[in-house]
């Protein structure tokens, strides 16, 4: 490997001292915040801390209370529904846009600029714009009605059953550009000769995509899925801006539950338990991926 800085000093700790000094922030962050902070939160999720963290253990009480709370169950259901739909639609839309962009089109840069600009905007801005567009009195619904279709109803943000779809629309608008970019990079990595061979064999384009190109892009898909998935679990600002969890509790998400219990309801124990559940959710996604990527990777060389 590089370096190793054979300074030849006798003291082992002092060897390569500058690099160690430069790494102090990283070491502190990794150990104190990432490892320490995580264990601290998990540890205190077994206490009945209210306003301040206290060391009075109550076993898994907080978790029982958590899963008995309708608000948390709603939040998890929302996250599951939103997560699955957002994953599927991001991949499909992102890939289709990328495939269109890969047809040697003109003005590729212009199109890419347009598809990607929402990604530069914050979730707060995204949520507020779509709150306005989906506003029942002025937005899409009222515009369609004013065109003559008076019974037209499209009011997701005030209808508990479909509010999560309203959030999904905004999220897809914001995030699909990124997926498109990743997919496009993946498509550009495919050897031209594959396309030539497929054309010579007379395989239709859609079949080439479906059975040859997509399987070849497996690593890109996996990376993209991990990126989308870890974003999904964290979804918070968008909901706060667009619906504030409403109407009622129908668009609650876990991240919002955590924040509300930690910083507003003064019920730290619940917040810790809920955030630990979020950690478990992420672990369920990440561990198989890490295994595929790094565990299985060795065999592939």
């Amino acid at each position: 490997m590089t370096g190793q800085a054979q300074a030849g000093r006798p003291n082992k700790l002092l060897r390569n001292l500058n690099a160690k000094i430069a790494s102090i922030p990283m070491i502190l962050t990794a150990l104190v915040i990432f490892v320490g902070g995580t264990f601290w939160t998990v540890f205190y999720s077994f206490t009945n801390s209210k306003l301040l963290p206290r060391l009075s253990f109550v076993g898994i009480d907080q978790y029982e209370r958590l899963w008995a709370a309708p608000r948390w169950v709603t939040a998890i259901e929302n996250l599951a529904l939103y997560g699955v739909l957002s994953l599927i639609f991001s991949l499909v839309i992102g890939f289709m846009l990328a495939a269109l962009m890969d047809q040697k089109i003109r003005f590729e840069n212009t199109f890419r600029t347009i598809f990607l600009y929402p990604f530069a905007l914050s979730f707060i801005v995204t949520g507020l714009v779509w709150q306005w567009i989906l506003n029942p009195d002025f937005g899409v619904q009222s515009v369609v009605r004013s065109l003559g279709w008076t019974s037209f109803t499209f009011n997701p943000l005030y209808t508990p059953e479909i509010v999560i779809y309203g959030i999904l629309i905004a999220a897809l608008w914001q995030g699909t550009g990124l997926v498109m970019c990743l997919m496009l990079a993946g498509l550009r990595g495919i050897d031209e000769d594959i396309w030539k061979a497929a054309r010579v064999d007379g395989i239709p384009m859609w079949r080439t995509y479906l059975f040859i190109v997509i399987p070849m892009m497996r690593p890109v898909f996996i990376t993209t899925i991990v990126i989308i998935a870890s974003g999904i679990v964290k979804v918070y600002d968008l909901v706060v801006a667009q619906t504030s969890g409403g109407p009622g509790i129908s668009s609650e998400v876990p991240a919002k539950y955590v924040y509300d219990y930690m910083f507003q309801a003064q019920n730290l124990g619940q917040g810790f338990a809920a955030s630990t559940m979020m950690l478990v959710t992420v672990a369920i996604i990440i561990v198989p991926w890490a295994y595929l990527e790094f565990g299985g990777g060795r065999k592939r060389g």
Partner: protein
Amino acid sequence: MANIETLNTTAAASDAVAPKLGEGPRGARPRPALSGRNIMLYGTLIVAALYYLLPLYVMVVTSLKGMPEIRLGNIFSPPMEITFEPWVKAWAEACTGLNCDGLSRGFWNSVRITVPSVIISIAIASVNGYALANWRFKGSELFFSILIIGAFIPYQVMIYPIVIILREIGIYGTLTGLVIVHSIFGMPILTLLFRNYFVSLPEELFKAARVDGAGFWQIFLKIMLPMSLPIFVVAMILQVTGIWNDFLFGVVFTRPDTYPMTVQLNNIVNSVQGVKEYNVNMAATILTGLVPLIVYFVSGRLFVRGIAAGAVKG
């Protein structure tokens, strides 16, 4: 086809990174321009592009209308009478709670948060990435792995311990505290970015400098830094947009008078008191989105590279 041309000329004008000639798709351009395939292709792309542009358009036209016009009409129609009053009001008069000095306060708070956070996080991560690439020591890879795995832990899990630490030091609720938090959470991705970049540089350079007797800082400042300006720009883009757009840390780690712009914007728009002034809300929304949008349009390809760097692990 005329449609396509007009759309593209206007869009190309706003595209500051307008394509360098000669770049773009490889190979010869096939087929005549007006084939059925092309109409389908460009038709789909243009419809999609219009969908993506729609919210921006709605924001701009709403912010230029007066309230009476908004109550009458159609959010998609262009303003009959252009007024800039909503912008002035959003910037200088909009109320959050008791303060009525508009978004300007949030803007300056965001500037005061973003500038030091970007500088500090990049300074730390670049030196650190350099140490990880060229001066490995026992355990360095282990800590780095922990750092990268830590990037996947939901922030909610680590927020409260940080609140306690900052409270103990006495900087909870101050901008300094928030700057530290941003520097911490920017570390995994930035360190990865710099480490991978420095690893990709030819090793001989480093070795030659070592043979000539240059030390850790000398090599970094005189050889590595001048060679890695593009990656610094990428890191800056990543951090400026990320920190400017942050909401969660802002709301947790600051107080109302130090709220960053995003938090203040949300409070202005979603406040339940008073009559809703949609034009002011939209003007405020654009103002908040303006900084990352400018960064995006100015940086163009580098922005794409930045997010791709954020995406591609290892």
